[in-house]
């Protein structure tokens, strides 16, 4: 007689798996070990005759591609399709960054990830006084659609998916992306990619906010509503734990605060009249990966299970895709050391390994020189090669959720889930994430953890190789990338040229319409799109919104 587990497994194979493999076959390369031993898609526990244990397994872990998605969001995971290798890049001008993108795509990268400079991220044009010194430094400067056209020159937007790290002005940059697509002849419904669009974590940890929480949430839900109709393949938000972790949180805090942010967005969208299953399948997440491999694996698994339960039990989602926590991972930059920088290649390898063992959908691996400056091209290539070696040589991509059933990993998964859930409960009791942020609750918890972590390093209780143990005298520092002083002037010159050449009346009219719209309740996306198409700048658009919405002060 078949046990409960065997019976369900057969059903999973004939339904979920068969459907998936028909659409995306498994790759022969990833079905045998290096010694030629066949590897199965997924492995299950051996206790098939113990009914209680089987029930617990089905409840807590289930099968990949099925609720609660603990073992992964796709039935075959990387056996059919590897994660997207997506290096975050952007510096100086659109021309320079476009060159870097083409280099990365030629090196085998499979998706783009745009880093914008801080003035762009905070909605200032390159000639704004507050942009002084910052133009093109941590990312590419984008003022108008003209810059965006150069950024994606000769990169077909129907073939490449693009992730954009943009939050407060996300609607503006998304509108520019749509406009560039249209100019390339790619309709909006064929565009694929992600906008970060997660303002709550800007208040908590990252700092590139513009507007107060209420109008920010309105802009975010406007994007949700617009995308549900026009951008069916785009991820409309990437709810981010990465910056929370980089600010010093623990793994459980990262999950707890991120999912609490996610809850706030889903609630805001529901309050705006959107049906959960219309937008939730396009909600994505973003986490960091530290060097503590097994804790990180458990964290990713816990996050998946907890989000699935929240979506089903709290929000009544019916579409299984609404319950899937799909995520991007970036290795944690703050773990990189300025000392003995080649050691960072090893750190990044371990971190990337944890993301893959944890079932990430896309991955950025940091470059070894990032504690010093912007990454050099050679360092970026090693970082990308690290992913390719894990994908093609390590064998960890050959079977789904390979660490499931490890006593340690399962226990950690349960613990992180419970701790994260307690944080969400606490935030609920405070009235939700916005009041919690106003009371500085998540900020305070993160600061506490960050302080403790750093103190452990100072005391030597936590060993950082090359920093507080195994140090060495280093004679030479590697060549580093710097942004030339002319970058700012070149960018301002182009902005002035665009301003001189565009139809000023059309720009004025579009901005007036946007301002009026902002005072009312309309969806602002179409108005922002019109302004962008008239070559209104990021700063001009954000200034009109500042006028209506005001600015957030920490």
């Amino acid at each position, binding site marked *: 007689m078949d046990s409960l587990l065997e019976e369900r497994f057969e059903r999973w194979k004939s339904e979920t798996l068969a459907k998936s493999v028909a659409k995306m076959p498994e790759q022969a390369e990833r079905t045998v070990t290096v010694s030629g031993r066949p590897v199965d898609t997924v492995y299950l526990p051996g206790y098939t005759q113990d009914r209680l244990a089987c029930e617990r397994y089905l409840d807590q872990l289930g099968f990949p591609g099925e609720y609660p998605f603990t073992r992964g969001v796709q039935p075959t995971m990387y056996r059919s399709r590897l994660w997207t290798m997506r290096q975050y890049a952007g510096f100086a001008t659109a021309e320079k960054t476009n060159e870097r993108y083409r280099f990365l795509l030629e090196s085998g990268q499979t998706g783009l990830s745009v880093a914008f400079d*801080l*003035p762009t*991220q*905070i909605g*200032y044009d390159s000639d704004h006084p*507050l*942009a*002084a*010194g*910052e133009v093109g*430094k*941590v990312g590419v400067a984008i003022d108008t659609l003209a810059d965006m056209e150069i950024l994606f020159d000769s990169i077909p937007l129907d073939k490449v998916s693009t992730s954009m790290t943009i939050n407060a002005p996300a609607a503006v940059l998304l509108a520019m992306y749509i406009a560039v697509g249209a100019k390339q002849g790619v309709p909006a419904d064929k565009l694929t990619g992600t906008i970060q669009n997660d303002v709550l974590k*800007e208040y908590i*940890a*990252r*700092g*590139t906010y513009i507007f107060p929480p209420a109008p920010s949430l309105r802009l975010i839900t406007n994007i949700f509503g617009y995308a549900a109709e026009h951008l069916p393949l785009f991820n409309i938000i990437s709810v981010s734990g990465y910056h929370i972790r*980089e*600010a*010093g949180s623990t793994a459980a805090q990262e999950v707890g605060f991120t999912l609490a942010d996610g809850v706030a967005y889903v609630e805001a969208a529901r309050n705006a009249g959107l049906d959960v299953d219309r937008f939730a399948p396009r909600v994505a997440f973003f986490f960091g990966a530290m060097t503590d491999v097994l804790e990180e694996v458990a964290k990713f698994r816990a996050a998946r299970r907890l989000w699935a339960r929240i979506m089903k039990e709290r929000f009544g989602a019916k579409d299984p895709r609404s319950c899937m926590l799909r995520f991007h991972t970036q290795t944690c930059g*703050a773990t*990189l*050391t*300025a*000392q003995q920088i080649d050691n960072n290649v090893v750190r990044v390898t371990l971190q990337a390994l944890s993301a893959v063992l944890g079932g990430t959908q896309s991955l950025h691996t940091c470059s070894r020189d990032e*504690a*010093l*400056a*912007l990454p050099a091209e050679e360092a970026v290539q090693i970082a990308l090669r690290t992913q390719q070696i894990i994908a093609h040589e390590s064998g960890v991509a050959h079977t789904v959720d390979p660490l499931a059933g490890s006593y340690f990993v399962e226990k950690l998964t349960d613990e992180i889930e419970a701790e994260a859930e307690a944080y969400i409960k606490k935030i609920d009791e405070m009235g939700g994430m916005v009041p919690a942020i106003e009371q500085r609750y998540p900020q305070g918890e993160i*600061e*506490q953890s*960050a*302080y*403790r972590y*750093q*103190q452990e390093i*100072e*005391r030597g209780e936590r060993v*950082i190789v090359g*920093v*507080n143990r195994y140090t060495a005298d280093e004679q030479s*520092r590697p060549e*580093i990338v*710097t*942004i030339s002083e002319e970058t700012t002037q070149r960018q301002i010159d182009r902005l002035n040229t665009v301003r001189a050449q565009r139809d000023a009346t059309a720009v004025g009219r579009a901005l007036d319409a946007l301002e009026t719209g902002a005072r009312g309740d309309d969806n602002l996306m179409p108005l922002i799109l019109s302004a962008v198409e008239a070559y209104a700048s990021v700063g001009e658009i954000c200034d009109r919104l500042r006028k209506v919405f005001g600015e957030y002060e*920490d």
Partner: protein
Amino acid sequence: MGYKLLLKIDIQPHDPCIQSQVVAKSRAVNARRPKRILIGKVGLDGHDRGAKFIVRALRNAGYEVIYTGIRKTPEQIVRTAIDEDVEAIGLSLLSGAHKELFARVAELLKEEGAENIVLFAGGTIPDQDIPYLRSLGFNWVFTPGAALSEILSALEEALTNSQSAGSAVTT
């Protein structure tokens, strides 16, 4: 559990770890009135993990610390420093805009006749930029991996020197 225990240690006002050597000394020096330091985040950079750590560590070491919060202009930093009558300013920046923005802070301090304020800095600052920052008056630039003990002793020395230099002028 170990976790809880550490938390308790952390919220105690004086951390036993840092107190050990440097602090015991600086206490003696600061016996009359705690020295006042401003930690500032200048520019648009939101990375404040390092700045917040230093704020807390300096407080635990007996200093009075004013933290500006993120995204402050050079003008705001200098205004606060003068209004609060600080003896040192520590600027933190990780975006690469340090040359322009630190120069502006130094220039404004000079305009205000406040060059006697001790300047130090931290962040992802390339070695090659350090001589320039020194020429602006930022005699201590701490880069990733700098030990807290190193920062505390440098600061203590700088403030002691500036105090004796100051009294030499007034007498």
